[in-house]
């Protein structure tokens, strides 16, 4: 455990990506294979679920440190991170009595699952008598699941590739999707032998697009580009396996085929052993439907007949990554597209499978005009893919771009705030934003916590501290005074929100220091944006730290 703790703290202290990468390589070279595999597992974004609940953990700590629970909550609020709070409140022995990372996880962490609360408390107090102060934070990061250490998946793959002397893309494929530390060995992960790959049906790392930041003309001649509409659904890879079986992987690398049985039913009509890259869309007899409709299908395994009928979907194919067992990713896009069209020529029309159409235009001017149809079509703009591009892992500059339509903008007033987390832990940086309703009062329509510079956040924080008008748990109501221009991708009417609308991807566009609260927009304006999309959001969706909705 000590070696891992050292890695954790070093990664936490290092500020340069390359230094972190070097440190990780050093760890993988010296750690035991069992420990190293756990680090791969966690850095791949996995977490141990169901080991403990937050409230439970706070009450155990309160008991251990002989503090009232409210005080532990205050501490959590100040620190912003529960694992760190615990590591500051619980003092272990000066010398560690914990074993390796692997044994600590197997003895102290995994057994917490399935125990009742009293037994969990016993086991955890025992754990606290084993861990040194140095190991407390790393352990509790594993326990509470918030384990990132500033290492992206891409960098994990690079580090492992260096250790094994293989391509990062190979590592990426081996570590993709669902796996556990019991069905893989570290030697398999870094092995240079290709034949040992046990499961060829794992998702390929998704090729991602960068936003067009400059004038689109700077991309050169339009003839070098394949243009498609940018559809708003769930990006996914669809594999047809032998024996009529299909697998669908979301971009979060979760297997989601059980949620979409109408798609896996198409497998017998597809060539064997292929992989399509595409988007799952809400789609009915009337064509494309708003994204909100798709939400009713999310996270629901084995949906019933009525919802399948009411909330039907379609898989819209963009690309062909595998055909008859051959990896096509290094072929130029134009060749892949040709093969994709050949595959689709043989697929019967009644299936919920579609081919993403190519948009033709004589030049950028004509294309710009066509882009204006985006909102009516329910898409987000264009995708621009270089004809010669291979299917890269992740975001590679110069090959794929998203040319999105401009977001909606509205001026909103900060009416309450909460301390942020992580980097912004001691700053009031989570804001509730309001607009004026017909009766002349401010109603909250969005929450946002991104889009300002560090300096601005600090300045807003100072304003908030001076203008607190009330406390509701961690939330502070604030005297109206700050106006932000908020960008969002769309609005839907919602029964769950007091204002009656829910915004998609709200984020702060800029601080309107020239505007007063009275200049903020009205609820009617926002409702106007909602216009056509009159669907009730009922599912309780989480939001990730970039303000994106968590789909699965």
């Amino acid at each position, binding site marked *: 455990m000590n070696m891992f703790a050292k890695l954790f703290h070093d990664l936490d202290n290092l500020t340069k990506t390359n230094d972190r990468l070097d440190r990780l390589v050093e760890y993988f070279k010296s750690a035991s294979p069992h420990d190293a595999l756990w680090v791969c597992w966690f850095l791949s974004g996995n977490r141990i679920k169901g080991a403990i609940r937050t409230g439970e953990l706070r009450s155990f700590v309160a008991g251990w440190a002989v503090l*009232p629970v409210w005080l532990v909550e205050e501490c959590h609020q100040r620190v912003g991170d529960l694992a760190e709070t615990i590591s500051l409140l619980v003092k272990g022995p000066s010398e560690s009595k914990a074993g390796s990372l692997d044994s600590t996880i197997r003895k102290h962490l995994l057994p917490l699952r399935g125990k009742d609360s009293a037994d969990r408390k016993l086991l955890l107090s025992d754990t606290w008598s084993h861990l040194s102060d140095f190991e407390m934070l790393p352990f509790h990061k594993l326990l509470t699941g918030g384990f990132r250490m500033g290492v992206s998946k891409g960098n994990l793959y690079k580090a492992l590739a260096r250790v094994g002397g293989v391509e990062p893309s190979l590592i990426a494929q081996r570590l993709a999707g669902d796996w556990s530390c019991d069905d893989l060995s570290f030697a398999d992960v870094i092995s240079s032998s290709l034949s040992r790959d046990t499961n060829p049906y794992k998702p390929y790392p998704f090729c991602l697009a960068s936003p067009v930041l400059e004038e689109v003309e700077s991309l050169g001649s339009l003839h070098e580009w394949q243009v498609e509409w940018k559809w708003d659904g769930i990006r996914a890879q669809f594999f047809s396996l032998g024996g009529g079986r299909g697998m669908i992987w979301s971009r979060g690398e979760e297997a989601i085929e059980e949620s979409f049985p109408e798609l896996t039913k198409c497998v017998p009509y597809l060539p064997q052993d292929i992989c399509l890259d595409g988007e799952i869309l809400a789609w009915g007899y009337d064509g494309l439907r708003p994204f909100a409709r798709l939400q009713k299908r999310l996270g629901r395994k084995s949906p019933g007949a009525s919802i399948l009928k009411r909330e039907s979907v379609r898989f819209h194919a963009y690309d062909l990554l595998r055909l008859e067992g051959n990896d096509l990713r290094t072929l130029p896009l134009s060749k892949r597209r040709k093969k994709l069209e050949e595959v689709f020529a043989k697929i019967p029309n009644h299936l919920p499978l579609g081919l993403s159409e190519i948009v033709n235009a004589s030049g950028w001017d004509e294309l710009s005009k066509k882009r204006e149809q985006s909102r009516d079509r329910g898409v987000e703009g264009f995708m621009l893919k270089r004809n010669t591009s291979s299917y890269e892992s992740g975001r590679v500059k110069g090959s794929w771009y998203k040319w999105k339509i401009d977001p909606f903008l509205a001026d909103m007033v900060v009416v309450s705030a909460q301390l942020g987390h992580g980097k912004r832990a001691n700053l009031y940086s989570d804001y509730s934003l309001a607009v004026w309703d017909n009766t002349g009062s401010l109603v909250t329509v969005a929450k946002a916590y991104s889009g300002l510079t560090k300096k601005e956040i600090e300045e807003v924080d100072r304003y908030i501290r001076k203008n607190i008008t009330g406390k509701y748990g961690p939330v502070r109501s604030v005297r109206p005074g700050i106006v932000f221009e908020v960008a969002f991708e769309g609005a839907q009417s919602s029964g769950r929100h007091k204002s009656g609308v829910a915004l998609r991807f709200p984020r702060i566009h800029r601080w309107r220091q020239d505007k007063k609260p009275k200049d903020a927009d009205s609820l009617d304006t926002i409702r106007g944006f909602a216009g056509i999309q009159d669907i009730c959001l009922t599912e309780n969706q989480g939001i990730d730290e970039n303000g994106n909705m968590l789909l699965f």
Partner: protein
Amino acid sequence: MTNILENKREGLYCPAGDFFVDPRGKVERAVITHAHSDHARAGHNYYLCSDSCLPILQIRIGTKAKIESVPFGKRTKIGSAYVSFHPAGHILGSAQIRIEVKGEVWVVSGDYKPQTDRTCEAFEVVSCNGFISECTFGLPVYQWADEQLVHNEINHWWRENAENECPSLLFAYSLGKAQRVLAGLETEGRPVFVHSAVHSFLTHYEQAGVKFPKLQKVERGIDYNFSNSMVIAPPAVEDSTWVRKMKKAKKGFASGWMSIRGAKRRRNLDRGFVLSDHADWHGLLEVINGTGADRVLLTHGNGDALVRFLRETGKDASMLEGASVRGEEEE
């Protein structure tokens, strides 16, 4: 507010002795706990402080100011109040002010730290009826480790940076913290530089018997080769061109606020060292209970949690009205 002390616009006022403690604005008589700028301000007519505080106070408010000083522990009569100074363990010369009127005793703590260190007089618990305590770090997440461990960490960090030919730039408040850090350095022959703000206080610390390693003051307009050196500077210069020129430097900060990683990351530092001149959570409780005071008033920091905690343990505690709720720049 109490029989002995009133809370006025300028700060705490003792009518029996007609003086203020650490006042703002302009008053006739100011009794000063210590020479930090949020306690010792220029502009008053007469000052009273502890003997070892005097030369430092002069640096802060000028030698022309009329300052008298008394040794620790000596009772002085001001009007009908008896006043004495007792070590607060915060910085050199820092004092708690004991005020006795008609047998009732109140103590104004100023900033204090019950743990001893080698740069200032050791804290002394003073029994009293009422205690006005700071509470800069009034949450149990603030618990200080043994001082030597922190010095070891700093020395280790410096050695590591030196091996990579990187200067170690360590931010520390110029009065108190900087001297504490300096006194704990193991140079192993490597050079030590200090910013001029830090330098101005060093002689008085040396006169008080504090030993520092061999060091050099950084002068304006000279280009130094800092390569493997330690540079101590106040956090206020963090954004200056001077610091920006030291491209290769690793940056650290020695402060109690560094307990929380978010505070370190927000400043874009390579390292945070948890070293504070204030009482930690246990220190606050130990001292507040040790004084035997029935009434406790808190100032300096967000004390809501400590007030509630003390009340739940049966103490008559509250926030001092108009108390400064100050953030990170706290000295």
